[in-house]
């Protein structure tokens, strides 16, 4: 069941168009990731979902009703949808008062507030912090207080803006796990905006990719990762090999493409003559010194044009008539004795080539 829909949202900030026609719907209980580069409009979208901002045009539906334009419904939405800002702020008051704040706004009795706050602080692992001033906490603890404060009213949806942007790896893991558990136990819909593809992959059931204010692709994490719908998404998820080619033949879904005069095979249903973009993830390109006989349909020889170590990995730039990047382990690179100027063989499977129309 969908609990929220947004339809053709546009937002201007001054002369800048931050959002351009965003539409999607949020399902009950799902974890929805919004990924995109910094400045692509993720934060604005969350602010519109929580109705802290009013869109310049477009509609927001919550529980089937159009809330845009109704101050009463907007404020009702804000009472039912929680949000944690990218850099969460806490009030200059005790941890207890911070977490109790939303309950006091709703005029709960002192006893009820007490019970709920203590339970929640226990759940996020901040038991014993009640009397500490929230401003004296570390980044991870502040994030926990902000989460506890947003969740204490048991909202139907929780919007998180880069929830782990400034955290160390340990706090990051704790908080990611807490969010997922809370969502499962309470059926809370979670929306996570992040610029990190990896976090989207770890947490989200579905991902929407936003680029320059437009929602360019929605799908399962694996779809986004392996089958990006356009060049910008492909670059964003780490596809380094983006080639142009023309279909020369199609035999039952195995197409042959002409790429800079070389023949590349891919699995796709396209007609001869179609101009296509080919995406090949650099880690799907296998490197060897002699032509090995493998099941990979595509095999080329080329010259090593560049070699860059980064940590445990080596990024090998090859010229095989067209430029190709292969990502292999540093160890393999050393075992193979790779050097700039040397010849090497590359191969990749026909299934490793993802094509889209130009």
């Amino acid at each position, binding site marked *: 069941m969908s609990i929220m829909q947004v339809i053709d949202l546009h937002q201007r900030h001054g002369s800048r168009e931050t959002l351009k026609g965003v539409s999607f719907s949020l399902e009950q209980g799902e974890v929805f990731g919004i990924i995109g580069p910094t400045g692509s409009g993720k934060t604005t979208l969350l*602010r519109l979902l929580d109705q802290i901002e009013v869109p310049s045009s477009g509609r927001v539906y919550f529980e089937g009703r159009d809330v845009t334009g109704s101050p009463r419904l907007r404020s009702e939405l804000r009472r039912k949808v929680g949000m944690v*800002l990218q850099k969460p702020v806490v*009030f200059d008051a005790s941890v207890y008062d911070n977490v109790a704040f939303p309950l006091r706004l709703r005029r709960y009795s002192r006893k009820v507030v007490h019970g709920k706050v203590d339970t929640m602080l226990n759940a996020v692992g901040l038991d014993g912090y009640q009397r500490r001033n929230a401003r004296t906490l570390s980044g991870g603890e502040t994030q926990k207080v902000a989460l506890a404060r947003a969740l204490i*009213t048991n909202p139907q949806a929780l919007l998180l803006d880069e929830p782990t942007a400034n955290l160390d790896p340990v706090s990051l893991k704790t908080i990611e796990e807490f969010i997922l558990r809370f969502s499962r136990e309470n059926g809370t819909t979670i929306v996570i905006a992040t610029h990190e593809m990896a976090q989207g992959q770890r947490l989200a059931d579905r991902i929407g990719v936003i680029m320059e204010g437009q929602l360019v692709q929605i799908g399962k994490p694996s779809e986004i990762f392996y089958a990006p719908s356009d060049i910008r998404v492909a670059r964003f998820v780490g596809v380094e090999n983006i080639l142009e080619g023309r279909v020369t033949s199609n035999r039952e879904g195995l197409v042959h493409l002409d790429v800079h005069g070389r023949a590349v095979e891919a699995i796709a249903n396209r007609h001869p003559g179609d101009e296509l973009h080919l995406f090949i993830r650099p880690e799907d390109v296998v490197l060897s010194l002699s032509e090995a006989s493998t099941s990979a349909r595509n095999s080329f020889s080329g010259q090593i044009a560049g070699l860059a170590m980064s940590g445990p990995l080596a990024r090998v730039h090859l010229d095989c008539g067209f430029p190709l990047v292969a990502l292999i382990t540093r160890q393999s690179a050393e075992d193979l004795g790779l050097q700039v100027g040397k010849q090497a063989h590359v191969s990749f499977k026909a299934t490793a080539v993802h094509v889209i129309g130009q």
Partner: protein
Amino acid sequence: MTELWDGLVQALHLIVTFDDEVVDIAWRSLRVSAASTVLAALICIPLGGLISFRSFRGKRLLINVIQTFYSVPTVCVGLFVFLMLSRAGPLGGLGLLFTPSAMVVGQALLITPIMLGLTISALSSVDKNIRDTTLSLGASERQAIWAIIKEARFAISAAIVLGFGRAISEVGVAMMVGGNIRGFTQILTTAIADEANQGNVELALALGVILLAIALVVTLGVNLVQQRR
């Protein structure tokens, strides 16, 4: 030099013996300035909260205008209130000219711009995210404004204390609308100017020391409050 020294010794004597005239003038000063501060604060805090919270066309301009009023010379405020309360003025019928009430109104008018301006800037210097957070947690406008005022409580207190300091130190308004009537509207600043000119150096010095002490306490108070942040 010895004459000056003797004057200072006699001035301190007047202070430590709680000389009637000295106590009377100082006490009147405190009451008048406290009253004008309370009056100004009652206007400035809610008004500042609303101006700071809402977005409206011309907000930037309004704040600029308020800040421009910081530097209206005291004699100009004094002249304005004098003309309003004078027999020929629109409020002349109230018969307030040359009374402590006139001084309270005049001083409140004098310090309202700076108190309002500092309140607004105290509220705007609260992290914008506090506003958004409060709203996203389900607060109404009134609840949100109150939460922001609580965040800025130290800076707002400083604005109020600073307003009091301005009121008790100024001489232009008090002189023009109070009239410096001995025993009735004479306060520290007007008395100091008057007594020095009349050659009562020891009295002027006694009052000067008290005024300086009050100004010092106010400044230290403002610093203390500001450093709590």
